[in-house]
């Protein structure tokens, strides 16, 4: 008669719920949700991005996506930490030649400086024709790398501006087609 029963289920009605437990709900209520795509690999998993008050509060899989049906891998599940991360650089940094430290700058200053660098280099090195007289119309001393981790439209703009506009040839990305 002293034997304790393993089959005894506690009765929910007698469980001592706290006030906070009773009110428990997910933080997704009332959040804004947008459909995103995981920024890591090329599977293209659907993500739901939840925000409140202009802040990210959660990123999880999009159950509607026929590719990922709501699932995510550890990196995809970590996407929140890509954005909300104290290591992120949130201001423009500038390192002068031979300096051993960053300086903080404004975006406007950086844009202006970079545009001038591009112009100076391009004006100095633009080649209309090579020694054999072949048409080049190219700048061979400026290059660009990256594109497989950003958006298609950004790739297009890079190619259009640097290639079609400035004549830069070495526009490359991670892909080796």
């Amino acid at each position, binding site marked *: 008669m002293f034997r304790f029963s393993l089959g005894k289920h506690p009765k929910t009605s007698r469980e001592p719920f706290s006030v906070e437990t009773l009110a428990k709900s997910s933080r997704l209520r009332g959040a804004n*949700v*947008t459909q995103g795509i995981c*920024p890591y*690999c*090329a*599977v*293209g998993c659907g993500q739901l991005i939840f*925000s409140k*008050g202009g802040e*990210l509060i959660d990123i999880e899989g999009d159950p*509607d996506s026929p*590719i990922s049906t709501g*699932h995510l891998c*550890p*990196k995809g599940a*970590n996407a*929140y930490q890509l*954005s909300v*991360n*104290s*290591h*992120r*650089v*949130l201001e423009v940094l*500038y390192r002068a*030649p*031979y300096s*051993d*430290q*960053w300086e903080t700058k*404004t*975006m406007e200053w950086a*844009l202006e400086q*970079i545009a001038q*660098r591009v112009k100076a280099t391009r004006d100095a090195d633009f080649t209309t024709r090579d020694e054999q007289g072949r*048409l080049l*119309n190219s700048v*061979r001393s400026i*290059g660009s*790398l*990256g*594109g497989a*981790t950003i*958006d*298609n439209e950004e*790739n297009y*703009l890079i*190619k*259009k501006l*640097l*290639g*079609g506009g*400035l*004549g*830069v040839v*070495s526009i*490359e*990305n991670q*892909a080796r*087609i």
Partner: protein
Amino acid sequence: MPGLGASFGRGAATNYQQDMANSDCILFMGSNMAEAQPVGFRWPMEAKLKGATLIHVDPRFTRMSAVCDLYVGIRSGSDIAFLGGLVNYVLTNDRWFHEYVLSYTNASTIIDEGFRDTEDLAGMFSGFDQQHESYDPKQGHWGFEKSGGGGAEQDGSKNTAQAESAKDEHNPQGHALDGSDDPHTSPSKSTTKPQRDPTLQHPRCVMQILRRHFARYTPEVVSQVCGCKPEEFMRVAELLCTNSGRERTTCIAYALGWTQHTTGVQIIRTAGILQLLLGNMGRPGGGIMALRGHSTIQGATDIATLYDSLPGYLPQPPARDPAHEGLSSYIESGGMPTGYWANFSKFIVSLLKAWYGEAARPDNDFGFSWVPRVDGDYSQLAYFDRMSKGGVKGYFLAGQNPGGGGPNAGLHRAGLRNLEWLVVLDWFETESATFWKNDRNGPLPSEIGTEVFFIPAAAAQEKEGSLTQTQRLIQWHKKAIDPSGDSRSDAWFIYNLGKHLKQLYAGSTDPRDQGLLNLTWDYDFDEQPRLPDGTLSRIEGEPDLEKVLMEINGHRLDEIDPRTGGPRLVSGYSELKDDGTTACGCWIYSGVFPEPGRNRADERKITDNPIQPEWGYAWPNNVRVLYNRASADPEGRPWSERKKLVWWDSEKRSWVGQDTPDFERNKPPDYQPPPGATGMAAIAGTNPFITKPDGLGWLYSPAIKDGPLPTHYEPVESPFGNLLYPKRNSNPTVRFFPGPLNPIAHMPTAEYPVVATTFRLTEHYLSGPMSRFNSWLNELQPEMFAELSYELAAERGIVHGGWMTIETPRGRIEARAMVTRRLRPFVVEGRMVHQIGLPFHWAFAGEVVGGNANDLTALVADPNVSMHESKAFTCQVQAGRLEGQALHPTVPTAHWPTLDPIPDTPASAQPEGRLGHGK
């Protein structure tokens, strides 16, 4: 991916990932899908639950091997031997799909009699140019024999093969960079059909050449070269054969384990041959899945941030003599008379119109001269080689980290140190952003003159845009919040940089500045955009990327859409014209934005169709399974009920089925092109590979620079000679970048006796910029380690969990030793060879830091796509650490992303895990 393009026409994965659930057997080789694409891997797992057999052939027993039904270990770099063995097995045992092969492949095509195979020339094909270490397909007579001419006809009417190579949709490198493909000296585009022998008995027909070529890849030889057992190989072969045919299909999946070799393109080619022979192409559950690693690596290739390619795989024009520098010459050498590439002129003119707008006029060649010409190799590897030697001044990095992740990363950092200025767009202070202060192997900051601008980039959730995933599916992602702090989207930066530059050049009359000044560059939002919660975005000057996508989609410039008052959007590339009345930024994407307000990349409709055609938009033309005409037999009937996808409905006179037909919808199966037909009219109703000039799958493909048939060569660095062709160790056309920073241990090497291969872990991403600043991932794989066998550990006195150093001619790194039986030595050519595995995720910047496997790899390039070889190189290992100070993290540990309470949320709904904080 010319490996696929050369065989089938398009260099992209042929099926969609969900389709892997329809496979009866899947061969994973050169891929570790479960670790690299875990979510994609759920589809193979679904197939397995349904009874499919999963096979993994890999040098390492990985987390994927653990769930596959069969694992076969092979030595890194022996893939062609293994696959060649499979081809040989299929041919000698008569297991090929006769009806499929006869109708849909070029097995019956007869090859020029001047062609000499590797069997005849001890491992070389005919046409090798010793001086340039490259093949001349014309000299080598690689082309198809044309009807009526035999071997005697003029050059001009045959050997179109190497010219065709240039037009293969995904083989932009096919065009010669030195301008030698002058249309007047290179073969003309004949519409003459190649000769065929449907009996396959002609000694020079592709089938017979194939048989002879692969005859030496016997199971015993495979076992000798690969280090696996003949029985293991036979089991794989038997499984593939029994799971192919009318009723069953086998899929082959690969990734960087195939591509990162100096023979990578040919490895993929071998798989292409195998899949064509087994009849698995264009069919549900079949195909070849190229599993790619970056969110829009496909898109970046399509839209072409590549030096030799314009958007839509149009070749970047090469430098040519003044007589042939114009648009017409470019079109002449770029187009093809038959097949889809006959529309070449429409694509390039529409692109020029998209770029230069009004200024692109017929009288100025539509501004074609403003497009820069390529006069050499400007690929990443070659360019960094040049940079390390001091030939480059300015550089932009957008979300890429060559200083940590480039092959021979030390050389890449040396390149960065030689720059005058560098612009880095990123989220975190990566190796490439901090090479001047954090690189232990580099000089002091006071000796580095590079000016560095670090532009904080917006996170993926902080911007909108589209990504093209591994199976060509374009998906739009929306902006959830504004970018934090001063960070801005890369688009914002490029757009505003463009505005600044246009201002700087304003008023210039110099002809060379006209391209920039005429560049259409107006993507401002019509009104300030709003965030999902309805508030106005605080970001000024953000470009409207939907406008960019519309430009990519294309417009009819001569028609006004009453809804917008602007030019009408085109509904697809078939609307494009070459008279300047259409503009289109990337023809293969045309159709993605067919009408105002309808961004098909942003479509999220779930339908009853298991293919889900209304979720996103797949190029081309929303086709999900490429070449799906081949899912039906020559008469247009499904091969079997079980494997039906697209078939000919004779009542509707149309191709119907689940997928969009990758074929002219109303072209009946019995259509035969009239003589002299051009363009798509030249493609018969039984020719599924419509971007090939003959519409056939190419078992024999002269469109590749290192030979029309795959041949086993050893990696550039290998402890072995080539058992199959002892006179020719490595690929004769490999390109080297000689220099003190890039020494190679030429084979067979005794100094570096251990084979090394690099690999990806699920828990990290690339060289770490998107994972080594993330504590939730770092805790899962906190340190660089090297996997090695018990046998090697015992031989070198390396203790599990202790330290070891790994050395190649390029560098030395230290790593923790993971001594495991998942790695085994291989018995190759009768002797034991050890192999180690190196994850490539660590370097010197981040929350966790460690030895960088890419400091060890070499800068060598395969001839087709300038791919390096980090999946097989040689090294020496020993116990112990590197001398000098150990690396330290460059940022402190951040256990929580944030401890701020979730806004507008009561305590009862706050996250459970902030543990006393935040509550």
